[in-house]
């Protein structure tokens, strides 16, 4: 999932770069591309606050949960507050929240638990002002772990809800 999320993010970054008028490549005026070296932030880079990469890395695209819980920790709420702020400032994107569980549990229960976690994150974003129509959820249960060491250090990272940005085609 990690890899495909990154690929998806990259796709979005390229799409954004392609339809931005004030790209440094265009602004530089030269055909050789040397004009790109002007010290401005490259749109789509992690330091561009409007980029999905920034959302992923600076805001934080995921929140973690305790064993068997879907209750949001204070740290999770802080991350989601940042996500809510970002989403309200960037209407070009909607969100798909993916809920996950660690491998300690049956497949069926973990699917339901992942749904609970994704929904907890969604409800929080709504409570902070994001329109519910912009947020969908899906549960992967224990099907898509990112860490596979079968120890608590890994399980803790797998019990997560990840907010994936989706280009808002109608927006």
């Amino acid at each position, binding site marked *: *999932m*990690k*890899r495909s999320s990154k690929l998806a993010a990259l796709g979005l970054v390229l799409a954004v770069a392609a339809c931005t008028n004030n790209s440094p490549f265009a602004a530089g005026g030269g055909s050789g591309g040397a004009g790109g070296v002007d010290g401005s932030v490259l749109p789509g880079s992690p330091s561009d606050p409007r980029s999905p990469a920034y959302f992923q890395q600076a805001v934080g695209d995921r929140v973690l949960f305790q064993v*068997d819980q*879907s209750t949001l920790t204070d740290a999770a709420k802080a991350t989601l507050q940042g996500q809510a702020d970002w989403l309200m400032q960037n209407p070009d994107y909607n969100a798909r929240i993916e809920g996950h569980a660690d*491998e*300690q*549990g*049956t*497949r*069926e*229960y973990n*699917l*339901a*638990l992942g*749904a*609970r*976690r*994704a*929904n*907890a994150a*969604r*409800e929080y974003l709504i409570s902070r002002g994001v329109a519910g129509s912009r947020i*969908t*959820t*899906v*549960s*992967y249960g224990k*099907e*898509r*772990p*990112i*860490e*596979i*060491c*079968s120890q608590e250090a890994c399980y803790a990272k797998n019990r997560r809800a990840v907010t994936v940005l989706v280009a808002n085609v109608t927006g």
Partner: protein
Amino acid sequence: MMRLLTSIFLGAALMAVPAVAQNTPLRIEITEGVIEPLPFAAPDFVPDTPAAAQYATQIARVVAADLTGTGLFREVPANAYISQVTSFDAPVQFADWKAINAQALVTGGVSVSGNTLTVRFRIWDVFSDTELGNGLQFTGTVDGWRRMAHKVADQVYSRITGEGGYFDSRVVFVSESGPKDERRKRLAIMDYDGANVQYLTDSSAIVLAPRFSPAGDRVLYTSYESGVPRIYVLDVGAVQRNVLPTQEGTMSFAPRFSPDGRSVVYSLARGGNTDLYLMDINSGQSRQLTNAPSIETAPSFSPDGSQIVFESDRSGTPQLYIMPTTGGEPRKISSGKGRYGTPVWSPRGDLIAFTKQSQGRFHIGVMRTDGSEERLLTASFLDEGPTWAPNGRVIMFTRESQGAEGRATLYSVDISGRNLRPVRTPDGASDPAWSPLQK
């Protein structure tokens, strides 16, 4: 006859009754109290024509493998034979088989005519010098020789144990490849013993938990094909699939057929809450069975269709409950310490198999339908998802090993906790579902 009957009765009695009846869950160690398996001989069947020779040998081997695979039988090897069976109709030399302590003897003849294969066989009670039941013959296509071997073995098993057979059956499962964090899954179907694997989907979307229809002709499963979990029904013969009707913004999973094959009970997650629903397959209309803020999932019908056993965390941890199919208050049946999931009603109606998580280990267990006489049959890092053999005597399940190199494998175990063994599959395998006995 007396001697053979004695062994049979002993075997059946030990399988049917728990070793110790007590209120606390009993863990059965498979190394304890192993039944002495019944020795039998299955010499190569006799070919009527040269074209039948290879099948005559292979069929006897499959029959022997089916029987020894139960753990209840032990094959006397061919190099111990004193006499050979060279004619299906010649009298059996009982003394020669007694001398090598083969208590049961299976003899057979095979003929091939064009694409048609006929198997004749007889089962002998060696120590009473008599035939056990009547000889039978099966006719089918040459390609179906393994099925005919399984049918012969089912007859032998059934006549000697008094139980229904289960060898002429299939298993639908999820074939897995790749590491844990990039696992690819596709539906597959095979004979119960791992032969004749066929793939039913590609691995472009995650597929989970296939379940047979009561007639074995259709399979329900969950797929992420649309981006979210939805339930599909697949026609096994035609390999055609249809998505079941669903509502936008919901996820549906954990489906099972009703015993009449007309309805599907399943879980639907909406707004983070998962409840049970019952759908009429023809009309696509669903009725909500539970309405609670807790998780209700993994439903399974009683064989008469009147009740549903399922998993719920309404008490705080996942436990097992039974409710009437018509609706009504569920009653909790699990009572031990730990977390219980994936309950499956035995086809005989007497037991419920389940997954139990306790003190960091996973177990497959069985309990009576009132929750009494809990017995844990296995223990490992991760065992889950039991499915019943058609005769309700054997359970197949998923065992996943630990860590980055972890891999899922199918195992089977009998309901006394004996005879734990892996089921051979080409790749990793999970979520088995056993078919009914084939017609």
